């Protein structure tokens, strides 16, 4: 489904990603792990076309996206839940979700039932200003916004970072459900190894902008974690 080949990506003049290649199969769940500052977020941003400059190939279902502007990548079926949530704080909850619909292929503006079922809190607070929500609620909103586009795959950047523990559990369950019950392909950037092992089928270990290791989740050994993630 998503295939990256020899991605080199730059932020200003800094060369952040070096020859990154990876393949995400339809319906699979891949976790990108590694220490802070190793290029995980940059990988997702590069897929969305938010890096300053890049070389290499990004193909989604055989369609080449590397030279497409960001909004067309979203329309091609990639939903993005950025680090720090980045919801539009002055919009209401409803407006934030509807904003996701601009990436729908049919262009219709409607609140998807799925989203309202997954997040009852949002359903009951559609007219609240999004800036007033707690971090966890904003994270749910960011996921809801990405789902409103009916994406074929979802990129999630540390969705449980800095969120109160009782909501972390809910968000993790939702992400697993999206993959297992609804067949959504997921590429997750995560530091939490317990959650990664529970949810993902494949992993990619990033180190200094290179792919240090990758494979099935069973191959994500304690040694690897010790070598690349211990602080």
């Amino acid at each position, binding site marked *: 489904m998503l295939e990256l080949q020899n991605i080199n990506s730059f932020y200003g003049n800094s060369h952040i990603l070096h020859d990154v290649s990876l393949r995400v199969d339809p319906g699979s769940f891949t976790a990108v792990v590694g220490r802070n500052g190793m290029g995980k977020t940059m990988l997702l941003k590069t897929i*969305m*076309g*938010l890096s300053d400059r890049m070389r290499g190939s990004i193909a989604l279902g055989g369609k080449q996206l590397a030279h497409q*502007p*960001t*909004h067309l990548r*979203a*329309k091609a079926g990639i939903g*993005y839940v*950025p680090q720090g949530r*980045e919801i*539009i*704080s*002055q*919009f209401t909850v409803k*407006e934030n979700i*509807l*904003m*996701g*619909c*601009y*990436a*729908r292929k049919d262009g219709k*503006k409607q609140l998807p039932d799925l989203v309202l079922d997954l997040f009852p809190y949002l359903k009951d607070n559609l007219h609240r200003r999004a*800036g007033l929500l707690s971090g966890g609620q904003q994270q749910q909103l960011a996921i809801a*916004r*990405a789902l409103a*586009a009916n994406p074929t795959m979802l990129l999630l950047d540390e969705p449980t970072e800095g969120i109160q523990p009782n909501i972390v559990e809910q968000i993790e369950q939702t992400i697993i459900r999206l993959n297992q019950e609804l067949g959504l392909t997921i590429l997750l950037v995560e530091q939490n190894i317990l959650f990664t092992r529970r949810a993902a089928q494949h992993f990619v270990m990033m180190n200094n902008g290179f792919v240090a290791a990758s494979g099935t989740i069973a191959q994500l050994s304690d040694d690897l974690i010790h070598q690349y993630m211990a602080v």
Partner: protein
Amino acid sequence: MLGSLLSGLSIGSVLLLVALGLMVIYGTMGVINMAHGDLVMLGAYVTVFSQRLLHVPFLLCLPLAFVFTGSLGWLIERLIVRRLYSRLLDTLLATWGIGIILQQVIRLTFGPELQNVSVPVFLTGETRVGGIGMPSYRLAVFLVSVALLLGVVAILHRTDLGMRLRAVSQNPQISACHGIDVNQVRAWTFALGAGLAGAAGVMVSGFNAVRPTMGSSYVVDSFIVVVVGGVSSLAGTVASAALLGGVNSVMAWLTNDVLAKAVLLLLAIAVIRFFPKGLFSAQAR
């Protein structure tokens, strides 16, 4: 006193009229359009041209000028401003240059002399408001600026373009990540702001002499209005136009026009000193 308040209202409505387009562009894209005053001037010349050569009735010049300067604004964004986003000083210089070019083009085609437009008879008399006579034309300016303001509010909050525009003004990258064509939205926003400048120019042409350099004073006034009101706040722009218009006319009534202008500038400086983000700044989350 009531008379000077009414005149303050009308000065305020001119300020609002001219500031509206600047605010739309500055508030949503962070681009200070130095050509704004010259787009106002162009709107005034559209009136001169349409009246003299096409014999178009005065009020019909409003949509004409809106479409003409709006299209020009769209072109300016596509060809020049688009390449300069996030480079504030470069957009200042580039739009200033565009303004100079517009001025010279008009000087070469219409000549440097003053032009007059004829105002329809029903706008030349006086209308009595609350027992006080007020020039009908001033009242018309007030009504047109309120109508344009309501139009802008409706576009921002009731239309699809408005929703995309508000999203882009808050977070362009994330807007793009959700399928919004940011470049397209910016081009339409610039067109809207430029169109509003043109419409303002039509109304201005009815009470001020039309000449190629008339834009400069308007760009300064409207910029003060936008900054005092708080960038990206429509309510702030309205409030500051009313405040500055009111202060201006009360001071002019108490003393004279020159002193009134000086007091206005002092007030603007004081506001910026104590509320650097303007009277109504968009609150952070």
